[in-house]
Every structure is written in structure tokens, then in C-alpha cells.
């Protein structure tokens, strides 16, 4: 019984672990210096695999992604900063290679849209609620009273 619980506990831990843990690059790509390896992983996650497109080169096992990881490591060993490495890859593959689109003229709308939607939606909601509040607040006129009386009568009859 206890062993069954233990297996369940282990399964829970394994299955809920971050999927990225399963997708880490092969061990032969590990860099000697742990701190540099952390930076390398950070960069892998920031760069798009240009064949698979929806994956970063950290997740992808495509040959081209392996090449790109190799290039990133070469630049890190050559002493580049993270920003320099990203700029270097971007120079060759364009903005598209960055997993996070840079904030610039042609991406302004992309970045601002959520805020525009939030403010616009909020304004609509506020105006709607206000109008509802006004409507319930107004007194019934003679016509409404007559209608109400008629309905009550109907209710009583049935």
C-alpha cells in the first residue's frame, strides 16, 4: 500500500514537472561553466527555431536548432554578452528569430492591442452598468403601472 502511494507520489512529481525539463538540449551540449550554461539556456529560450517556427531552439531537436545552439555557445565562449549574442543572430535571421517581438514601429499595434482592448472593454462595461443602474432607478410611469396591475390580476386568476 505504502509503495503504491510512493509510486503515485513519484508519478505526480514527474508528470507535473515543467515540460521544459524534458526538452533540455542533449548532455553533450552542456557548457563546462555552470553560470555560462545558465546564460546559454536563457538565450536558447529567447531564440526561435527557424524551421520549426513555433518552438525555441531550446525545445527543438531539429538539426538547424542544434547548429544555432552551437553558434550561441561559440559566441558566449568568445566573451559576448547576452544582448550581443541576440543582436548577432538577429542580424542574420531578422526580428523573426526572437521569440519576443521587439517593441518598434511595426510591432507597436501588437504590443498596445491588449491595453486598447482592456481600456475599450472596460469603458463599454462601465457605460453599460451605468445605463442599467439609471434604468432601474427611474420611477414607473402610468402606463407601466397599468401593465403591472394587469399582470398581477392575470396571476391571481390562474
Amino acid at each position: 500500500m505504502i509503495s503504491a502511494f510512493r509510486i503515485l507520489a513519484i508519478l505526480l512529481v514527474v508528470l507535473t514537472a515543467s515540460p521544459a525539463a524534458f526538452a533540455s538540449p542533449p548532455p553533450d551540449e552542456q557548457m563546462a561553466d555552470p553560470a555560462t550554461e545558465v546564460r546559454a539556456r536563457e538565450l536558447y529560450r529567447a531564440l526561435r527555431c527557424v524551421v520549426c517556427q513555433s518552438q525555441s531552439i531550446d525545445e527543438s531537436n531539429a538539426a538547424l536548432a542544434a547548429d544555432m545552439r552551437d553558434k550561441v555557445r561559440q559566441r558566449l565562449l568568445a566573451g559576448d554578452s547576452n544582448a550581443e549574442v541576440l543582436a548577432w543572430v538577429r542580424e542574420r535571421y531578422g526580428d523573426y528569430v526572437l521569440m519576443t517581438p521587439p517593441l518598434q514601429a511595426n510591432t507597436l499595434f501588437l504590443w498596445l492591442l491588449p491595453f486598447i482592448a482592456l481600456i475599450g472593454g472596460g469603458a463599454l462595461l462601465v457605460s453599460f452598468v451605468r445605463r442599467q443602474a439609471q434604468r432601474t432607478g427611474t420611477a414607473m410611469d402610468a402606463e407601466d403601472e397599468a401593465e403591472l396591475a394587469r399582470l398581477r390580476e392575470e396571476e391571481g386568476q390562474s
Partner: protein
Amino acid sequence: MNRVFLFLPLAVFVVMGVYFALGLREDPSSIPSRMIDRPLPAFDLAAIAEGEPGFSNADLDGQVALVNVFGTWCPPCEIEHPMLMQISRSGRVPIYGVDWRDEPGAGAAWLARNGNPYQRVGDDPDGDLAFELGITGAPETFLIDRQGQVRFHHVGIIDETVWRDTLLPMIEALETE
């Protein structure tokens, strides 16, 4: 005023519909090239077989040419190959090859079997030049002008249509420049 708002969801739907319809027509594998109107990076590739010349910038000097990135592991390259042979036989424009990420000897054997459309072929086993060129997959082809600048970057197979409607007119224009 309120009535106008009623049509808002419909308007949003129509705008999104138009964008999605346009998006469906786009080829998701073609990424805007960074190479257009830039000179080719400096390179000096080894030959793919012993005793043959390699391929470097100097070979392109002063001519309009195609530089084709291929690999023997790449099925679309095999499909493209007869078209390259046809262009090569016509003698219209010289084609140079970059053998990308191949095992030693694989490229030479492949060309011996299928025919060699290339003036020269350079070996790029680790994808160093491919990376400099921003290659996303083979085959990809660059049209180079007399000054060694990239004028056009074709991602994917060159077929009869691409050759006739896109490459040939550009080559003709570049030759009169």
C-alpha cells in the same frame, strides 16, 4: 449611436476574416530575408571531393550568378535538381553550390549520380556559411549581381514557373545594369 455599436462584433469579425484569409495565402516557411541588397559574407569553402576546386567569393567576381544551398539529405533538393540541370545546360546563368550539413563524400557521390549543375561546389559541413546567410532550410537560392550583392533570395524549390517568371527576368535586368 447605440445601434452603431450593435454592428461592432460584425465589423471585428469581417476585419479578422480578411486578415485570416490573406494569412492563409502566405507561405509560413518564408521568412523575410536579411540578405537582400547586402554583399555576400566573406567565405572560402573547401571542395566536396579531393582534387576539385573549392568555392569562395573570388569565384563570383563580376558575374550575375545563382548560389544554391542544398544537401543530399534534403528531399526537395532532389526534386529541384533536374531544373538546375536544365538551367545549367541552357548556359543562361552560372550556378554555384553550397553543400550544407552533409557527411564527407555524400555530396560528391550525389552529384556523380544525378549530374552536376554547379560551376563550383563548396562544402559547409557545420552550416557556418548557411548561418551567415540566414538559411532556414534547403533548398534556398541567392541571386547575386556583378558587385557580389544579393539581389534576390528564393526559399524553396526552383521550378519552371519560378525560373521563367521570377529569376529569368531579374537576371536579364541585372545583366544590363
